[in-house]
């Protein structure tokens, strides 16, 4: 049993190592963004206006976004707000990939589309890598999110298997009990405090 758990701990670590490192590094960049250049060093946004003449499909956000993404070869994952969250005078959505945000606006009046492309600095690329959540957008995006799921599950696995391995190997358990007890009390205490405190 011990060897099985040890191998699970080890092999899970080797599989998710790069993703887990990326998440903790990018998370650190996120919470201390000013230390990593903040919003500086980003190139100016580029805006272009294109013609939508010839489009005869539905004027719904989903149909328009699918058409614009394909016609103007916008690379990334489209985030299309539902009709109730769209402005009254236009259809708006964005197409995002780490490092690049393309904001698209299609006014209801007229046959044009405005595409504003904002490129990020290095810190921004990390932040956007960190913020990729949820399945959808094609198999590459799904593979990334699957690795995210694996890394998330591995965090729980490392914690549980790590406790087992420590318990089985430590001759003097007092320091481990103190560390584990402090950690559990603090985290559980924080959750209970936030749930119950006025």
């Amino acid at each position, binding site marked *: 049993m011990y060897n099985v758990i040890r191998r699970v701990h080890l092999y899970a670590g080797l599989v998710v190592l790069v993703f887990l490192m990326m998440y903790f590094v990018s998370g650190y960049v996120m*919470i201390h963004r000013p230390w990593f250049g903040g919003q500086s060093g980003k190139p100016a946004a580029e805006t272009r206006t294109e013609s939508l003449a010839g489009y005869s499909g539905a004027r719904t956000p989903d149909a328009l976004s699918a058409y614009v993404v394909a016609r103007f070869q916008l690379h990334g994952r489209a985030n299309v707000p539902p009709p109730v969250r769209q402005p009254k005078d236009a259809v708006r959505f964005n197409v995002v990939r780490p490092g690049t945000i393309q904001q698209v606006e299609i006014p209801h009046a007229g046959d044009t589309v405005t595409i504003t492309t904002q490129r990020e600095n290095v810190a921004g690329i990390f932040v956007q890598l960190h913020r990729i959540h949820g399945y959808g957008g094609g198999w590459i995006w799904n593979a990334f999110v699957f690795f995210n799921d694996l890394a998330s599950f591995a965090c729980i696995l490392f914690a549980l298997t*790590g406790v087992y391995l420590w318990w089985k190997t430590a001759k003097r358990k007092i320091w481990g009990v103190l560390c584990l007890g402090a950690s*559990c009390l603090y985290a559980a205490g924080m959750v209970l405090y936030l749930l119950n*405190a006025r």
Partner: protein
Amino acid sequence: MLRKIILNLHIYGGLLCFGYLIVFGISSLNFNHPFEFTRAKKAPITWERSVTLPDLPRVTDDMTSEQRVDAKAEANHAVRQALGLFGHQRPWQQSWWDAKDPNHYHASLVRPGAEYEVDVHLDRNLAIVAETRTSAWSVIGALHGFHGAMPGSTFASSWAWYTELCTFVVLFAGVSGVYLWTARQNERRFGFVLLGGAAAGSLALMLYLTLHG
């Protein structure tokens, strides 16, 4: 000797971050799988408390939008302190002075676990609070990215330090784990194949999404 020190840091650092890893793991999974029951909120409850806030900052027509936000932020903090609450305040459209009743101010406060919509009636020295409690899932999710100070609570603010500590512990655990594994003679070949394949795949995914999308 060095190996033993690194092993001990790996073990005891990991034990110290046990709670954080569980919170981080659950919240990350929840971000990808936001089941409806994890977003549930309890029905708001309303309570009242007498407050005295004679100098609550006001917004005026000649203020810029930034000055308005600053004034409402200051007013919200004063309301929070008067009520003995902790949390952040929302100074944008969520907070406002009543255009028809100069004695009525609405403050919006939020923190992991609770949201407060407060109607302050200066002429009656009264605050009416609509309090909405969120679920444990929501609290765990909020702790995921929670950093910085939480106004009104030193204890809640201390989570930021725990996040700092655990970030470095996890980074160290990753590097030290590889070091400890490579020092062992057995399991190296399979481990290298696993590490190499997974690392190449992970980096390729990140690069592809960044460069191509």
